[in-house]
């Protein structure tokens, strides 16, 4: 049904339309498998999916289970999947949900990666909160504690406010691909929480926190960079971006070399692109283990890894995903392009201070001049605060 302009003008008087909902239901007491339940509600198209679920609950079936409270995307209760994508139900408009639905029915399911307790309610304690507790989620304040507030830069506080803005809704956890493969991965929400302390100049244990998260095989280097959490987050916390910042501070500022080979792997990547302009897959593995030197190729761990990867490599060659020539000699790009790549490297690495993008300051992506803040200082850089300790 098209909304008439007159109705659009006076939303309160009319402009409602029918929306079909398909809810994933599960009653743990029934002994039966989850099933689909359909309801039709009447609402204006700019109303939320949560309002639709609540209307179905109020009018047709009071037993529909969903956690919710604030209706304004701040309490973080109503994380669900709408048409297969994680979202806050209160933060998803019906018209948008309708257009992303496959068959004109808005499909609402519980979040993923967490056990379902009933209908749309998942067990966040078993997964999300357990992971949050893993990252020592409280400030380990620098001593001595000042009489008044800690004197810290304005930028540093606004910077950690971006992660402070996380409402613990679980949307990022729901669709974390790395967690799907490795349920032990600390995950996007908890690592964003970790940044909230690592980036806080009042915290005394930046190095210890980072070393802990870098050495953990399920820590910061377990993220596969898939951007799912960035898309899922309703509060622009940018969890993956925070994980990458944790990596940069761990490796560049503290020189932490982790047992998971994460630091060397990243160094190999950036090194290869500087050298070739594009990734050179055959070199990546040896360099990740043995470093950029020619002899590094013969690092025993690299050989072992190479051996175990052989079937994949052979398959790749057989299916013509890789040509033997390309695999051995790598990509070649025009000399001018390669020079341009290296100019970028020189410029970025030549800066005295690393720049980090902070959405919380910059506002929307399309802002003409995104604000840029300097990277928070590593603990090796002395704080200018008078009571700053030596730690």
């Amino acid at each position, binding site marked *: 049904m098209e909304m008439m302009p007159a109705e659009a003008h*006076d*939303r*309160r*008087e009319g402009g409602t339309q029918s929306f079909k909902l398909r809810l994933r239901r599960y*009653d743990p*007491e029934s002994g039966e498998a989850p099933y689909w339940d359909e309801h039709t509600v009447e609402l204006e198209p*700019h109303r939320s999916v949560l309002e639709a679920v609540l209307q179905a*609950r*109020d009018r047709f*079936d*009071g*037993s529909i*289970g969903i*956690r*919710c*409270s*604030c*209706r*304004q*995307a*701040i*309490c*973080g*209760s109503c994380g669900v999947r709408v048409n297969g994508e994680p979202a806050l139900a209160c933060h998803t*408009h019906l018209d948008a949900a309708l257009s992303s639905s496959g068959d004109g029915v808005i499909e609402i399911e519980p979040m993923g990666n967490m056990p379902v*307790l*009933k209908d749309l*309610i998942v067990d*966040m*304690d078993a997964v999300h909160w357990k992971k*949050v*507790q893993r990252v020592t989620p*409280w*400030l380990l*304040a620098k001593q001595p*504690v000042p*009489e*008044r*507030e800690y*004197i*810290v*830069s*304005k930028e540093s*506080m*606004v910077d*950690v*406010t971006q992660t*402070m*803005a996380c*409402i*613990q809704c679980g949307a990022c956890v729901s669709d974390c691909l790395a967690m799907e493969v490795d349920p032990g991965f600390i995950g996007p929400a908890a690592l964003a929480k970790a940044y*909230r*302390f690592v980036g*806080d100049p009042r915290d005394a244990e930046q190095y210890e926190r980072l070393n802990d998260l870098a050495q953990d095989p399920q820590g910061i280097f377990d993220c596969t960079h898939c951007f799912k959490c960035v898309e899922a987050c309703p509060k622009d916390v940018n969890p993956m971006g925070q994980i990458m910042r944790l990596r940069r501070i761990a490796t560049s500022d503290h020189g932490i070399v982790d047992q998971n080979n994460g630091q060397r792997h990243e160094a190999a990547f950036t090194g290869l692109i500087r050298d070739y302009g594009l990734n050179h897959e055959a070199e990546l593995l040896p360099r990740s283990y043995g470093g950029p030197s020619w002899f590094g190729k013969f690092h025993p761990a690299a050989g072992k890894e190479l051996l175990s990867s052989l079937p994949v490599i052979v398959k790749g060659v057989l299916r013509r995903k890789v040509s033997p020539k390309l695999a051995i000699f790598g990509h070649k790009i025009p000399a001018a392009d390669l020079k341009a790549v290296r100019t970028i490297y020189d410029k970025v690495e030549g800066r005295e201070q690393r720049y980090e993008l902070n959405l*919380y*300051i*910059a*506002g929307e992506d399309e*802002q003409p001049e995104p*604000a840029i803040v300097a990277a928070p200082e590593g603990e090796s850089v002395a704080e200018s605060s008078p009571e700053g300790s030596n730690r």
Partner: protein
Amino acid sequence: MPAHDVLIIGAGLAGQRAALAAAQNGASVAIMSKVHPVRSHSVAAAGGINAAISVDDDWRSHAYDTVKGSDFLGDQDAIEIMCSEAPQEVMHLEHMGVTFHRNEKGEMDLRAFGGASMKRTAYVADITGQALLHVLYEQLMKHHETVERYEEWFTTSLLKDDAGRCCGVIARDVRSGRMEAFDAKNVILACGGAGQAYKPTTNGLIVTGDGIAMAYRAGAPLMDMEMVQYHPTCLVETGILITEGARGEGAHLLNANGERFMEKSAPNKMELASRDVVSRAEQIEIDEGRGVGPNGAGILLDVTVVPRKRTLEALREIVNLGRDFAGVDITREPIMIRPGQHYIMGGVKTDVDGRTPIEGLYAAGEVACVSVHGGNRLGANSLLDTLIFGRRAGEHAAARAASMGRPKPDSRTRLQEDAERIDAIVARPHEGRRVSEIKAELGETMNEHAAVFRDEAGLTEARETIARLKEEAAKAWIDDRGTVFNQDVLGAIELGFMVDCAEATVLAALERKESRGAQFRTDHPERDDEQWLKHIDVTLDGEDPAHPKVSYSPVTITQWQPEERKY
């Protein structure tokens, strides 16, 4: 059976602060909440927290502003305590890790807020409540060995022993449906207000007056219940709150003629007069036909006069709210708002240590009435109230616990009764009305008759409607027959709580035949200090529950005599 020295009901700011304070003072502590603590409605407080921390400020100035804001109904001894302890409390929070916004010198920055004579509101962008709540929860996780947490446990009633002392609660594990009696030397109610008795409201769906109603049923007096705050800037359609911080940063209010109408009622403070004053001024514009939008029911809030970069940095949340819930880019165009139910100044009567007249029962935060807000709360004083009196209640309860033996209530009988009561709700036949219908009628009734402007006729009608709804609520039917996350049955219990709160509000509003603070009686438009400079207490008489008792208690005045209120 679980037993604790101090059992806290509600895990918002007041509850969590009480739990930490009680644990620090050596008590065995448990905190119970019907939702996960970070879902508590404190999370939605946006603008900030008041404290005279600036070197140019003095807590007495903060106290005077609060007294004046309360329209002289606030108890000045309690206000003095709150305002004088505020700077230390805010520093404590900063040390715990709250990421307060800084100025160029790296000190805490302060923003302007309504009714304040200078900038004294510390803030974290416009997510101050969220930042505070999450940082306190960090501390609860840190102190998990000394503070036990019962998350997603719904309290159904308070336990009293033969001597009339409160000594525990009955609660239901929302996850499993299991009922349990909890013994406690002291119970601290910290479970918030009753905004859901209104429709629309800025309050979350969980804010259903549970603590107020449970205390009321246990015989505790409710004070200042007629004082219901309408926040001046709520989205017209959904009632979602736009923080006062917007006006603190300089935003204007405009009527349909583009006039800054606050000139008329508050020529000095303009948009930053106290909330009751601004809401009334808006309502007058709307009622006299100078509103905007559908039915002329809105007012324009113009944030475009605030520098765009400042808006994106310090008011980011409302930029998002405007975009997502009203389709408006507030940095480019004005947004339509109106007054909406936001806060109840009244609640369970307590002293400055959170003690209610029932021994062993404490209350802190919105559930309580100390009274520091009197007839009207100043913006950014509610977070302060929760923390100061949450802490004081926790400390006092811990000290009391140390000097007493374990009480022996007959909890088994009560447990049985509550379990049967819930079973009976589940088993109700599908006759009469659904819970959701009754709730909607209750909310609409309150919003019509117990709102910004009130009169005898409307309030009387509301009282009759509520009496009918009370009967209907006692028979309302539900669908869910299960035990795991049976939110339906909890909704029926909550409806009963809300009806009780509404009853007390309407009764007190009828009683107060004057206009003071948030109570404006069109049939008694003047403030009348001679007759009404006193609190109204509503108490449920066990003998005759159909007729709650109304009585009065004096207002404590220390250094500020009532005077005419001008902004």
